[in-house]
């Protein structure tokens, strides 16, 4: 498979705390890559390094390279804002903008970036994005209701629609289902299956069954180092490392 994101010797710190130690891996194009591992192993830090969100936290910094289509997003002169427009992110807790309607939430990325578009074009983008996020039929009759008036699962799909509207190449999902009930989780997982036709997806998950269901590739992280990385099926059936086997069989974590 063609490589979309290539991580080379990535290290990350929070202040003096070294959270990621020399991570290198290839994220294939048009597939779902899952990052698993016990709490505090650096999963979220890793995914946040992939679109330069890590450095937003005061005192945090990272070294190493992340190549998007061969170009380093950490190179001198690269604007992190541009990186984040190409590599979108969905967060752990649904976080629609509470002051905006559903409609405005979907086009928030475009509007806030100062893109001028006609009302008609925006309406088209809203419908397209909400359909992609499998939310259109549920909210089409009250697009002007507040973005936080819908259920948690719908809010998370709204956040996905909001990310899609910016037309990124890669979508990062940081435990997108951890705040959702099983039915909403199933919907988001089905959506991830749909989206990988068009996008490269990296997902952090706590839930190994979920990693098994949605991903093509799996990376196992432990104590800030990458223990094993390979096709999901192989990682779950014949792991090479002892730690991986212990973790996926539930002996720790």
């Amino acid at each position, binding site marked *: 498979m063609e490589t979309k994101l290539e991580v080379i010797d990535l290290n990350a710190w929070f202040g003096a705390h070294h959270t990621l130690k020399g991570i290198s891996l290839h994220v294939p194009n048009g597939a779902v890559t899952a990052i698993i591992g016990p709490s505090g192993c650096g999963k979220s830090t890793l995914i946040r390094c992939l679109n330069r969100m890590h450095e937003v936290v005061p005192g945090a910094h990272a070294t190493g390279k992340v190549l998007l289509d061969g170009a380093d997003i950490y190179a001198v002169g690269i604007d992190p804002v541009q990186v984040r427009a190409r590599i*979108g992110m969905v967060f752990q807790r649904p976080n629609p903008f509470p002051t905006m309607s559903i409609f405005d939430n979907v086009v928030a990325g475009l*509007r806030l970036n100062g893109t001028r578009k006609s009302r008609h074009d925006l309406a088209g983008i809203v419908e397209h994005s909400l359909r992609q996020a499998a939310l259109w039929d549920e909210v089409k009759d009250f697009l002007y209701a507040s973005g936080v008036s819908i259920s948690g699962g719908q809010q998370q799909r709204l956040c996905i629609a909001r990310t899609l509207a910016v037309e990124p190449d890669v979508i990062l999902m940081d435990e997108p289902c951890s705040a959702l009930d099983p039915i909403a989780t199933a919907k988001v997982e089905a959506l991830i299956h749909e989206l990988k036709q068009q996008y490269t997806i990296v997902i952090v998950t706590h839930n190994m069954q979920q990693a098994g269901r949605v991903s093509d590739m799996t990376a196992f992280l432990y104590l800030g180092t990458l223990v094993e990385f390979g096709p999901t099926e192989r990682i779950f059936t014949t792991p090479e490392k002892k730690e991986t086997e212990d973790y996926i069989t539930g002996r720790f974590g």
Partner: protein
Amino acid sequence: MAVLLPLVLIFGYLVMKGFSSLNLDFFTQLPKPVGEPGGGMANAIVGTLTLIGLACAMGLPVGVLAGVFLAEHGHRRLGSTIRFCADVLTGVPSIVIGIYAYTLIVLPMHSFSAYAGGFALAVIMLPIVTRTTEEMVRLVPSSLREASLGLGVPAWRTTVWVVLRTARGGIITGIMLAIARVAGETAPLLFTAFGNQFWNHGLMGPISSLPAQVYTYAISPFEDWHRQAWAGALVLLVLIFLTSLAVRLLTRGRMRSAL
């Protein structure tokens, strides 16, 4: 109850003493010389509104920007210095701020002026607006900031369109508190705006204000003026009350955006 009681008592007493002197003339006429019945405080009402307007024009932009700066970058050393200064400024007696404005503006300009009065009030408003803005901006969950940054929105646009927009209600409440505080200030106006028995001629000259007018009338030996002072105090209180109420109504339930 214990909080409400003083307010009700003050308001009741003011209505009792001042309501009888309120009439159309009070709002439209200039003060009359001692002994002549009638007259009003129209110039003082307009003056107070002018001074508050000037104070807002000078104090709010600085205060809100400083508050946003403290909330977003306040962990740096400069942040704690500014925060400390703002806290000290809150405690500075308003008469001292009046002297400051007198030295800085009245002396070089060789004239009492509305500008000087507005400036003194702006200085009093500044720390209140700064600290409430900071608190309100801090209350905006960082997840919203991250959501916006994650969409590829630059940091300054995120601050203006997501953070400030979300914190708007609280910031406006803080501004109202600051306005209510300075609307009744008398001491810093005595030697900056000074006061004036006639219509105000431009912002470069002395200007009257309700609190100063009430003060002048209240310490005078004339029964007529005492009644006018009560009425002036009542009007001042109602003015502050109405501003607070109006803002409450305006900021309520603003979920739907203006499309």
